């Protein structure tokens, strides 16, 4: 029995999901209020934007890159979109029109930042880490400068309802996250560009010689990642009812942590949508549970670090080819 379980665990790529379930069960018993409807909803709503942003990041990391600028993308889309929509802006659109325009503008901002990142990485041949570190600094500074460090209020009701509305009883944020996951899954597993993304991540030289449009593939991934971050910004902005220039500042490490814990390789070429979902679930559960226990922020950080390290070790142990004897 134990041996069978062990073998299944060795072969399956759902190990993080099992950890999540185990953690969820244990926490339900020991933490008051963890297993409550309110908390579960809370968890779900925290989870959705993180899933969306992490899926974008996964695509970039599959090409062997990294996008550190997602947080600044969230902040800039939030304030630019909010200033289009806010009744303080004096643009005077009718509220539902301005909601559409606002969301459109936010996604365009995300795509534009992704385009800048992608072009710098491919055409200028700069390392992704450098490019996105600088765009992170530039655009987060830009967002603060634009708003003079003020939040933007008075957003139209139709926009605020996004985070509470449902489509056939499924909340819109869940619909959005499912949509992004399906699109990413479809692209990665059934299309030419999906194959190209993996090939570029595994070996750029081989990919180029085999006729892969390397630059186009990489740029598309950064643009997709930017759009995902902007979509995350839509959900965050709607829920907080404000456009904030410091929105999403703390989620960068959660996003990258979630993707990597899920099993996506930092060197590219290996990763799945499913893995990232599990990774995000894991990080969110961890955060939520520790918060409910009532640990201080610093203790939470310490425990989180330890648990992530533990999960990473489990993953590495699994990966290591058993030494044939």
């Amino acid at each position, binding site marked *: 029995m134990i041996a069978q379980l062990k073998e299944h665990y060795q072969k399956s790529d759902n190990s993080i999901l099992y950890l999540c379930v185990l953690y969820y069960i244990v926490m339900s018993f020991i933490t008051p209020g963890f297993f409550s409807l309110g908390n579960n909803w809370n968890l779900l709503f925290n989870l959705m934007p993180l899933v969306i942003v992490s899926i974008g990041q996964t695509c970039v990391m599959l090409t062997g890159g990294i996008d550190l600028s997602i947080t600044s993308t969230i902040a800039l889309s939030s304030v630019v979109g909010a200033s289009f929509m806010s009744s303080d802006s004096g643009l005077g659109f009718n509220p539902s029109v301005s909601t559409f325009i606002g969301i459109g503008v936010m996604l365009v901002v995300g795509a534009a930042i992704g385009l800048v990142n992608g072009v710098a990485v491919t055409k200028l041949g700069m390392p992704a880490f450098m490019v996105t570190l600088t765009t992170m600094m530039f655009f987060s500074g830009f967002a603060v400068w634009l708003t003079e460090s003020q939040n933007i209020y008075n957003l139209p009701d139709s926009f605020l309802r996004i985070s509470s509305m449902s489509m056939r009883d499924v909340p819109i944020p869940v619909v959005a996250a499912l949509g992004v996951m399906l699109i990413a899954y479809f692209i990665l597993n*059934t*299309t*030419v*560009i999906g*194959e*190209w993304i*993996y*090939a570029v991540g*595994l*070996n750029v*030289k*081989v*990919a*180029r*010689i*085999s*006729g*892969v*449009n390397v630059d186009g593939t990489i740029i598309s991934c950064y643009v997709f990642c930017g759009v995902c971050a902007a979509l995350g910004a839509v959900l965050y902005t709607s829920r907080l009812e404000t456009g904030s220039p410091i929105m999403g500042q703390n989620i960068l490490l959660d996003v990258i942590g979630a993707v990597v814990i899920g099993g996506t390789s930092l060197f590219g*070429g*290996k990763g799945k949508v499913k893995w990232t979902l599990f990774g995000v679930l894991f990080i969110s559960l961890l955060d939520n549970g520790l918060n409910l226990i009532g640990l201080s922020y610093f203790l939470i950080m310490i425990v989180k670090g330890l648990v992530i390290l533990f999960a990473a070790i489990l993953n590495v142990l699994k990966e290591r080819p058993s030494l*044939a*004897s």
Partner: protein
Amino acid sequence: MLLELKEIKKSFGQVRVLKGVSFTLEAGKVLGLVGENGAGKSTLMNILGGIHKPSSGEVFLEGKAFAPQGPTVSLNSGIALIHQELNLFPNLTVFENLFVKNFPRKSVAGIKLIDRRAAIFRAKELLEQVGLDIEPDRIVESLSPAQRQLLEIAKALSSSPRIIIFDEPTTALTRHESRRLFSLINDLRSNGIGMIYISHNLEDVISLSDDIAVLRDGEFINGYTKGGGYSLGSIIRDMVGRDMDQFFPDRDNIPRTDHLLEVKNLGMAPIVNGVSFVAKKGEVLGFYGLVGAGRSEVARCIYGLDSFEYGEVLWNGMRVKTLNPAAWISRGVAFLTEDRREEGLLLDQSIEKNVALASLGSFASAFLRRIKRKDINSAAKKKAEATRVKCDSFDGQATSTLSGGNQQKIVLAKWLLTDPKLLILDEPTKGIDVGAKHDIYELVNELVGNGSSVLLISSELEELLGMCDRILVMNRGRISAEFAKDVFNREAILESALHVMEEAIGA
């Protein structure tokens, strides 16, 4: 007896790689070890080198049981392994590479420091021993492949081994450098060192070895002793397990006269200096020359992998403006590059995915570019099977686990699936065994028989003589001579490759 192997067996999981191999090696003798790729030679060597442990069987070193726990133990017991893939640190200097395991030390005020001066002095001795004329503080990155190979040998000598194992030492060397290596091997032999020499170049093995052991499919097939009466043919028969009446298969089509690819005055100083040639339809056009003569570079420039300074390329008589791999593939041109591990294969991916990679576009729907999975998988599998690749699974086995010859077949299958009108092959049979070579030649012939053309770049003159309709010889970035099939002349070809030209001879 210096070394004795008794009934060595080794399995990786379900795969039995060695099925009970025994042989002996005496001091001051060279044992030639031959066999096809995947016959188990490398595994055997890795067992001696302490990298793998045998599943069963025993090794005796000077009569004592020897079961190394790791590479360092083997090295300290006097077994030096010179790998086919070089194990040098390209970012370090020559002498640092030589002593990376055991730097000479000196003690300053009780603190042990590296003794650079002693290291450089000792490095000079070792370099001289292998006939390598370079400064010990050169960065390894700046060395040619041949120099690196010799450095690897110097590194092996630095541990004063009693047994040296050479795994394909001459693939990166020119004839001249190989000869120097052979005289070094003869010196070592007279110093009482026992050597195991693994190579696909059977002429070399025959001329060097005192004894020859032939492996096939993990079994010891036959052993020969110098003067015991054997021939190249009998060794090949033992290796392959079948008669190969004709090593270079026949091809009876005649090249047409229309030009498929035309290159005019192509140049990238100082490597390529004004190269012009024409490849005709249905022709196998060979490129011969020394390493560094610019053959690969010409192909890389044409294919858009390297940029060039001047010249033009015509395809079917039309000037080509966009030179990049994707554009060439859509025109029907494929390029099998020299470095299959770095540029040919996605090593972590399955055979199926590798073969499909260059043809994804032609198996995708117009809308959303969805891949027709079933079609492409069965087409890829069919192509891979046509190359007679030996593997356990097409969709589950990473290509990194295949032997060199089988890996090359996968790269070739990838290009054949694109249905090329022109196939450029850069050293397609480097480091692969006779059987796989033969299979590759047959595939090339089949392709040409269907009207396609092939550019064959090779350092093996035999291969070019056997396969080509025409051979162009390159020398220092220029085409120095051209030979048609009916006037192939080995000496003249060698001469035009070796001689320093006063003037370029335009083609």
